[in-house]
């Protein structure tokens, strides 16, 4: 009996800050300004301007996720290899930026990448002409990687470190070379960490608007920016909610898919 009450604060919290807002979003998404039911706000995602923003969002998020993965997995392998007692310190350094305000970090990045910024100053010392990095999709991806990398590193690092050394010895004992050990043992055994890393990076990328705003100079419209503008500039909560809702459907589909994959992996795995 008493156990029910222990959960009460959480249930109240979840209702107030998760379920209720969701209901509001859904309400606005399916109604028009007059309060009548409509699907227009949802289907608005299909008009060319929004499609363009969606595709660009997907592309940039994908690029960011892949880059994070390409940095994190080898890093985890190197850290595992390193016979160091202070691996914790390296991890601390990697996640240290998380302790700083995200917007502050992105603003700093804007200064570094800008036309007269530090990066171009350094490049000029080597006689390289100033690059226009800022306000490009590349700058946005750079910012996303910078911002979300820790969320990829941590789960992958944990998964890779959890692998029993005996398994790696056993694989070598059976004739596996180093790449073979990584491919056949370490990668499959850290799959869950990799999947959770991908989820934790891809989804925030898809919905982010601050990074494209600051590093894209307002010229590059991602889905997040479109939604933000509907809410803040156009004050059209109905359309904003509708687009948010459509985006949420994307995310949920993605999650269900990865969850299924996970389940399948747990049960059986093909060689």
């Amino acid at each position, binding site marked *: 009996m008493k156990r029910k009450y222990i959960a009460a604060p959480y249930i109240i919290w979840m209702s107030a800050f998760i379920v209720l807002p969701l209901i509001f979003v859904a309400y606005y998404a399916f109604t028009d300004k007059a309060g009548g039911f409509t699907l227009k706000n949802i289907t608005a995602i299909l008009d060319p301007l929004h499609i363009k923003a969606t595709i660009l969002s997907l592309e940039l998020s994908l690029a960011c996720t892949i880059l994070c993965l390409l940095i994190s997995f080898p890093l985890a392998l190197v850290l595992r290899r390193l016979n160091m007692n202070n691996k914790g310190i390296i991890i601390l350094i990697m996640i240290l930026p998380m302790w700083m305000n995200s917007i502050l970090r992105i603003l700093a990045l804007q200064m570094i990448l800008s036309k007269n910024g530090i990066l171009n100053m350094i490049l000029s010392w080597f006689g390289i002409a100033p690059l226009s990095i800022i306000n490009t999709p590349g700058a946005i991806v750079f910012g996303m990687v910078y911002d979300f990398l820790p969320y990829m590193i941590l789960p992958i690092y944990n998964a890779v470190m959890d692998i*029993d050394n005996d*398994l790696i*010895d*056993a694989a070598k004992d059976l*004739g596996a070379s180093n790449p073979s050990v990584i491919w056949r043992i370490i990668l499959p055994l850290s799959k869950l960490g990799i999947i959770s890393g991908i989820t934790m990076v891809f989804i925030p990328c898809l919905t982010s608007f601050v990074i494209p705003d600051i590093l894209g100079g307002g010229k590059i419209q991602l889905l997040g920016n479109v939604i933000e503008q509907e809410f803040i500039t156009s004050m059209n909560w109905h359309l904003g909610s509708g687009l948010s809702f459509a985006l949420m459907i994307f995310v949920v589909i993605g999650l269900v898919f990865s969850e299924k994959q996970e389940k399948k992996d747990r049960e059986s795995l093909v060689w």
Partner: protein
Amino acid sequence: MLENILSLNNITKSFDGELVLEDLSLDIKRNEFVTLLGPSGCGKTTTLRIIAGFVMPDQGSVLLEGEDITTLPTEKRCINTVFQKYALFPHMTVAENIAFGLKIKKKDDDYIRQKIKYALELVNLTGFEKRKPRSLSGGQQQRIAIARAIVNEPQILLLDEPLGALDLKLRQDMQKELIRLKKELGITFIYVTHDQEEALTMSDKIVVMNQGYIQQIGTPEDIYNEPQNAFVADFIGSANLLAGTMIHDELVSINDVRFDCVDKGFGNNKPVDVVIRPEDVEIREKGQGIFPAVVTSVLFKGVHYEIFAKGIGIDWMIHTTAYHEVGAEIDLYVKPFNIQIMNKPESEDEAVIQTE
């Protein structure tokens, strides 16, 4: 073909400045069942890992079939290991585990299928192909680990306390199974254990180790009957370990009582270690033994009684099938050839007898 399949020559290894193996040399013959036996931390696993190639020795060389493999990486050695904690790949089925080494060697599917079938038959686990390691019992997992190693047809199979995690009954079954496997496969087994009984039952040759040194190499009978020093005597089976003085050839004095023995060449009036196995101490009627004693405890051990009796200032451990009451006054007798004389240890590491 060389007689020795594997030779370790003057191997020295230290970890963080701590000497773990010192000047260890060992020859292993083709088809032998060799057991490395010793207390925890004596360097058994390290020796095995040097043979497998997981650890590089600081000094010395490893020869396989006369060829120097000291620096050859693990994956290139024709040696396979059965790990103490099985180390089965959790994300693969039993069949995938067994096939792992063969896949790496790019064997064709038919060959692999046959090998899996053969190996599972050999370890009595036919029909387990599709199971995941997690769904198997400890004994079954251990057998799969053995199957996974032997399908690669290694020249030498290394087993690091493979039965350590199993309960007594299962361990005894697996001991028999391993002996059968060894016969069927006809390959060299190098086995690590700290269980002396296991070593005595299974091995052709036992290497007794302590603190990184080899104490004695010999057949189980040799090691048991003719221990070379007090450490070996104490570690293998139970023993009465005594400090004595060799008066002259064939006569030793223990606590001022003289015993006839058969050992010679220790010099005159030299302190020595003496070993007498508990089954070699005979209880006799009063007046018919060498010295008197009083029974202090009796324990029934299944096939024999373990009796402790105090005589000439020593607690004697006696194994006998005849019952004697606590407090009984008896005489004890030891046949001359059952008294083992050994030199006092040269290094402190070997000293297990504290002389009073």
